[in-house]
């Protein structure tokens, strides 16, 4: 495996940094080296934020931000209007967007694969709150195959013990099942 780079776009309060951390922890459980870090912005609720993840089977030494991601995860489709979410995305990469719309309705300028999932709906149905960060990790595991859904669920339940974690893990599985082969 060569290094895979992931950029997560969200708004302050949507748990983008947490999602990056959980993804790094899950990938480590799968036996990979991993690195997760925020874009170091001044965090304000609602403001566009980014977080980055690198996965590799070798020690990760690179410390720059991610400019040419293999994967982009967009937690909030309204960001597409103000942020170039597909910037630098590799042509053979993939962008996964939380929206009720179909990929072809989004008119993204990218050669990469575009996937959509209504993660907010899944979060509302299963978790009962519109917090979609763990749901998007399930979708990422299913669509990319870079991490296992079990590791994502473990990482989620370790971070959020008890009922909250259980519901999040259920939502992760649901998104994963929709993501696989979608």
């Amino acid at each position, binding site marked *: 495996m060569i290094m895979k780079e992931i950029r997560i776009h969200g708004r302050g309060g949507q748990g983008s940094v947490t999602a990056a951390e959980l993804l790094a922890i899950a990938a480590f459980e799968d036996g990979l*080296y991993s690195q997760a870090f925020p874009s170091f912005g001044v965090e304000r609720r609602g403001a566009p934020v980014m977080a980055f993840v690198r996965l590799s089977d070798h020690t990760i030494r*690179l410390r720059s931000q991610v400019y040419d991601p293999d994967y982009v995860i967009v937690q909030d489709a309204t960001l597409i209007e103000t942020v170039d979410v597909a910037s630098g995305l590799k042509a053979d990469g993939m962008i996964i967007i939380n929206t009720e719309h179909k990929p072809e309705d989004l008119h993204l300028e990218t050669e990469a694969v575009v996937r959509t999932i209504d993660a907010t709906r899944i979060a509302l149905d299963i978790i009962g709150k519109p917090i979609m960060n763990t749901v998007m990790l399930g979708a990422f595991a299913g669509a990319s195959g870079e991490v296992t859904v079990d590791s994502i669920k473990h990482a989620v339940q370790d971070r959020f013990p008890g009922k909250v974690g259980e519901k999040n893990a259920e939502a992760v599985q649901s998104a994963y099942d929709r993501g696989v082969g979608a």
Partner: protein
Amino acid sequence: MTGELKSGRQVVEGSYAVAHAAAMCRPDVISAYPITPQTHIVEDLSQFVADGVIDSKYINVESEFSALSALVGASAAGARTYSATTSQGLALMHEVLFNAAGMRLPIVMTIVNRSMSAPINIWNDHQDSVAQRDTGWIQIYIEDAQELVDATAQAFMIGEDPDVSLPVMVCMDGFILSHVFEPVDLLDQKDVDDFLPQFLPVRALDPDNPESFGMFVDPAYYMDFRYLVEQAMDASRSKIEDAAKKFESSFGRHYGGLIDTYHTDGAEIILVAMGSLVGTLRDVVDDLRSKGKPVGLLKIRAFRPFPIDEIKKAVAGAKVVVVLDKNISLGTGEGAVTTEIKAGMYNGDISVPVIGFVIGLGGRDIPVTTVQRIVEKAEDVIRNGIAAESEFVDLNHSHVRV
């Protein structure tokens, strides 16, 4: 987090890694004042104390000046002491930094490197600690979260050595290392207890045997005290190397002593840097070497004491030395590391051109492409000689571009 501290290999935040490492060294007294991006370290440590999983006394204070002053007192009384700060907080400690070193108190302090105001900025560069280079503190710069853990344990060993007895700053890049999640081998308490001897101060306050620390001295004595601090700094050179070797024999990891080198043998261009940028440079060196370009890397681990002999030896065969400075010594046009390498080489036998690049100030990102452009400039120096001894890299705004 309650109960026992975790140990073993896992993905944790860099800040947690350093808090954990500091805790494993069993400091008697911790005092710190929270400031971004150091906050998570002191939150974790105060949590450990509140949960009763470590036995340290945590002194809450109203400022960084007081935090370090509290540790000066505690250390003079023979306690093992720890603090962490950054940027403006470190600047507020400035006066006490000299006192801690002059009184020969082996306080260990993590510096979460951040830029200096104004303009106010919370992101990484090395200006805060580089500006404290004359205070008498040993300074070790850190490449990744694992080295942070390992060097924290080594820092107590180095500073507390009776031949040294000086305070130590362990300098880590703010956000880049403090907020990264990556795999780290967290140290086991028993292993650290075996590695790190008990702190036996050379001198300590004792009501039964009164002594004075840092008292008034007239011109007949002052200069000799300063000379002794310089001698202790010099003695710390071999102790820094020894601590790294001892750590390696106990834990199997070695991140360099005063310096570390990477593909410097046969290198025509040698990149020099401190801190987490070294990781990015290792990737660049591997890439350029695979394309047949003779590029190597010199990591400065100890900036104080300054390892000029080791640097000279490492660059002796090169055609150009390229220093990447995350600081600017205003009024000289270049970073402090560039100046010191040039100064250190001036009277020597070897003559290698040295060029400096001021880079990454206030958190400006350093992409691989930027480093590649710098290497191209170094190739120009080999072909055509030095055009500019120092320059600012990746200036954004056209009105400040030269």
